[in-house]
């Protein structure tokens, strides 16, 4: 039922990968996920179509209410525990899709495009958690700050808080943390910008998700040499840590709200 929005106005920071990794963990745990795609390039819809996961194109499937949206999702889902909805062209209808999806799925995971726009604002306003993936290079720090600014603006105007966390992605695996990364982490912490404990390291297995149109649990897709994937155990460990940390955060938020 919660909505997790993966947002960073910086392109290529690992949003889509993070969204898919988290969605995969929920499915592996027996849950259902709606991936809301706000990217006109539609990487999620392409991934889904190639592997036979149901896709709703919201600009072709007009809905007038949340109940309509829920009906569409149930119909197309069948036995699938993932449904991808591409809604990039409409930041009003997206509210109906969010309401409808929450009635069917355990989680809604939203994957916006890599530039700020009204779709992101609309979806982020309904988020239970905004995850900000952040590849630890200096210039990306600026973009993280931009994203947080959008969130803070919304918080201020709504006089409500939005739970958000920065997630370091594509960090070098292994014991060595680059100087840049360490300084950036220290700076974020010093300035009170909330950081996830989990890191999604730079691993070929994460790139393989889109190469093979797979979830981590599907890899390797066969025993053939060309299907072997490096870094799979590490990627699984990162993914597990990510989902556990997200679920803990959301559990705490639920308890605080109660």
């Amino acid at each position, binding site marked *: *039922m*919660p909505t997790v929005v993966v947002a960073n106005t910086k392109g290529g920071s690992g949003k889509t990968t993070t969204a898919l990794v988290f969605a995969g*963990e*929920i499915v*592996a*745990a*027996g*849950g*259902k996920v709606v991936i809301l795609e706000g990217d006109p390039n539609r990487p999620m819809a392409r991934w889904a179509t190639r592997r036979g996961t149901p896709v709703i194109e919201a600009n072709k499937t007009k809905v007038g209410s*949340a109940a309509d949206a*829920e009906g569409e999702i149930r119909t197309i889902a069948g036995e699938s525990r993932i449904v991808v909805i591409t809604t*990039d062209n*409409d*930041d*009003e*209808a997206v*509210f109906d899709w*969010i*309401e*409808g999806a*929450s*009635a*069917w*799925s*355990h989680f809604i995971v939203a994957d916006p495009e890599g530039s*700020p*726009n*009204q*779709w992101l*604002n*609309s979806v*982020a*306003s*309904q988020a239970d958690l905004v995850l900000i993936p952040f590849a630890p290079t*200096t*210039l990306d*720090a*600026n*973009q*993280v*700050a*931009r994203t*947080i*600014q*959008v969130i*803070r*603006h*919304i918080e201020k*105007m*709504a006089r*409500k808080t*939005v739970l958000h966390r920065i997630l370091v992605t594509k960090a070098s695996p292994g014991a060595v943390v680059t100087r840049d990364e360490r300084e950036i982490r220290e*700076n974020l912490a*010093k*300035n009170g*910008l909330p950081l996830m404990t989990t890191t999604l390291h730079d691993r070929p297995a994460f790139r393989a998700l889109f190469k093979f149109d797979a979830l981590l649990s599907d890899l390797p897709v066969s025993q053939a040499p060309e299907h072997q994937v490096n870094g799979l155990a590490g990627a699984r460990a990162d993914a597990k840590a990510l*989902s556990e940390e997200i*679920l803990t955060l*959301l559990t705490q938020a*639920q308890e605080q709200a109660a």
Partner: protein
Amino acid sequence: MSNDPFGFDELAGGTAPKVDTGPDLSRFAPKAKTIDVEKAAAAKAAGEAHGFHSRSPRQPREPAPPARPEPPKAKGKRLVIGRRRRGEGGDIGQLSLTGDPEVLKEFVRRATFERATYVGFLGQMLELWEREHGKLPDDFEI
């Protein structure tokens, strides 16, 4: 399946406890939620303050409260930032920035970590700096 190669689950009538240690999703069970219209309206206003335009052909559900973005107070030389999206929009603000790399670094540092009202302009300021003063300094760091 591969977890249970001998078919113990089936023998037990499918009631054998799952050995899966995956997370418990019971508290996140599907449940229709209603849109938080206040937040939706605030998001709309925030978007308008940033010069975003709705891509929806429909009317908004709730009228957005009037947006009052804080005008940034600038000292020194000002560069005007223009944002144009989809053929519309206009200038959205002015910030203080010179061609001095040290000033730029300090600006980015403060905008990133201290001045929430400035960071929304950061990407554009960097672009603008490059356009006005050439390539960003090599050792450009926060």
